């Protein structure tokens, strides 16, 4: 019948929605800056072999003749004690950083989210209390300390440091979703669905969860920066990717010994960390505006 017409209507609506979302996002200029920074980091990380001036320097490369050179026209950010180009290594390290961020979130968001939904919807029930008490326990421990403890037990690799961060990160999502679910479960449309006889699975995932996405995505964006920072902190103390793979935290810790004389070895990686975190934070502001429903 009118299928084609309706599909056209849907596409048009979706396009309008995207335009409107972008408008809201771009109202704050700093958010756009954040977005640009994040995209740049991603591009530099992914296309590192093509873009970096010295792609071989990320591996086991040694050239003592070119060691500890301050920033010049060949080596924009200078070289480290092994003669490796710092800039190329930073670009490569972006990969590890982004992998860390995405990897952690991919685990903690579904895990924390589902626990939060269950605890929130059945608040008052023993299962909800159990989940929230366990969450409270994990929340009481500072994330970095917990990650350190877990990391120290396991062998230091990227994967293990990611797992360590996951252990300390999931409760935040449980608490976030729990808070929203306890409010949303009283909304009339949820009550309606219950009265109609909808299954609990439908109510949790189709009625409640879609309304949690706003604050959820905002938090995820901000968390990318914080997870990366935590990961860098872990590798700073040696619990992360091992040399010769470049990792921002390791680069800072190795270079710290040479401050203030060969300042570039530590400062540039540190700046890189700062830029990533700042980029995600600024973007997070924009996402919050974009998802807020103010007409």
């Amino acid at each position, binding site marked *: *019948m*009118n*299928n084609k*017409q*309706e599909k056209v*209507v*849907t596409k048009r*609506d979706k396009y309008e929605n995207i335009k409107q979302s972008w408008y809201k996002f771009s109202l704050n200029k700093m958010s756009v800056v954040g977005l640009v920074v994040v995209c740049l980091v991603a591009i530099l990380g992914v296309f590192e072999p093509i873009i970096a001036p010295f792609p071989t320097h990320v591996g086991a490369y040694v050239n003592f003749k070119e060691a500890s050179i301050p920033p010049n026209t060949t080596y924009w950010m200078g070289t480290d004690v092994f003669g490796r180009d710092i800039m190329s290594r930073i670009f490569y390290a972006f990969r590890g950083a982004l992998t860390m961020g995405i990897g952690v979130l991919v685990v903690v968001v579904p895990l924390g989210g589902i626990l939060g939904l269950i605890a929130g919807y059945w608040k008052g029930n023993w299962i909800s209390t159990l989940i929230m008490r366990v969450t409270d326990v994990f929340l009481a421990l500072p994330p970095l300390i917990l990650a350190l403890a877990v990391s120290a037990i396991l062998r230091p690799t990227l994967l293990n440091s990611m797992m360590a961060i996951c252990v300390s990160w999931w409760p935040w999502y449980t608490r976030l979703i729990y808070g929203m679910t306890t409010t949303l479960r009283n*909304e*009339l*449309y*949820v*009550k*309606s*669905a*219950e*009265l*109609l*006889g*909808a*299954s609990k699975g*439908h109510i949790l995932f*189709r*009625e409640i969860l*879609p*309304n949690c*996405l706003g604050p959820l995505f905002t938090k995820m964006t901000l968390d990318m920066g914080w997870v990366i920072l935590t990961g860098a902190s872990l590798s700073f103390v040696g619990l992360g990717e091992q040399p010769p793979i470049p990792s921002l935290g390791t680069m800072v810790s190795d270079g710290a010994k040479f401050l203030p004389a060969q300042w570039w070895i530590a400062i540039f990686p540190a700046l890189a960390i700062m830029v990533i975190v700042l980029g995600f934070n600024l973007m997070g502001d924009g996402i919050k505006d974009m998802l807020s*429903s103010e007409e």
Partner: protein
Amino acid sequence: MNKTILEVKGLKKYFPISKGAQKGMFVKAIDGIDFTTKEGETLGLVGESGSGKSTTAYNVIGMYGATAGKITFKGEDISQISSKRPLNFKKDIQMVFQDPGTTLNPQRSVRQILTLPLSIHGMLDKNDPEGQLIQLLEAVELSAEYLYKYPSSLGGGERQMLAVARALSTNPSMIVLDEPTSSLDVSVQAKIINMLLRLQQQHNLSYLFITHDLSLMRNLATKVAIMYLGKIAEIAPVETFFTAPRHPYTQMLLSAIPVISEEEEIFKQAKITPKGEIPSPVNVPKGCGFNTRCPFAKEECFIDDPLMQEIEPEHFVRCHLI
């Protein structure tokens, strides 16, 4: 002769207060009410804050379970909460809520919203699901293009019409409507009420209609019950209710309505000026709940709670003055 479809007897709903200074006490939202509704009829429930009219609706639909008393629908006991009721009752009584803003999930499309009740009760037409939904939309005078819209792009009136479509989707025998048009403009309200009346005719629907708007009730209900502080003060067929009400609260409410023509002024009865505040349902006055505001209260009214008396066929009043 239409038969009774809904019967409420001695219904009570108390909510315990769990915190604060009044811990241990109860909010007596409904404190013993009785009424019946026949097939194809509209029973109107009227009242102000704290009267218990919404709570009554929620009890009938199953959002709350009764504290005491019995609700019978088509001969079956439905006093318990919805989750304990058999599935087929959930499709036979449906509800339309007051607030168009939150009655539809903003994250789901119209299509998804209307499909839900059909798929739960296995009533979805597998061969032509869209066609089925479009027919539903047409029943509430909305065009097919609404199918892919989201509630945020719809006005209040349209959302309420969708809520009615959702309620109709499972071919219920009864629809409970809790102030469905109170937040809407008068022109939109007229459209929706018209539609409800037409649908009632077509499908022989019974309505339990709650509103504070007596002018609307006059043109909609078959029988009207007025509630005050959890009890029914008066219940009568619509003509009698408006031409010869006997309870002082009914008269007070009628006289407070702002009307727009001289002819209506007559129905505002002996001008009983509203005075006083409505007491809280936690602290119901001893004796008749209305004694703090009634201009005719006598000694008896402060001691004994009056009983419902049938002063003429189908006309019940709860008042010592009768």
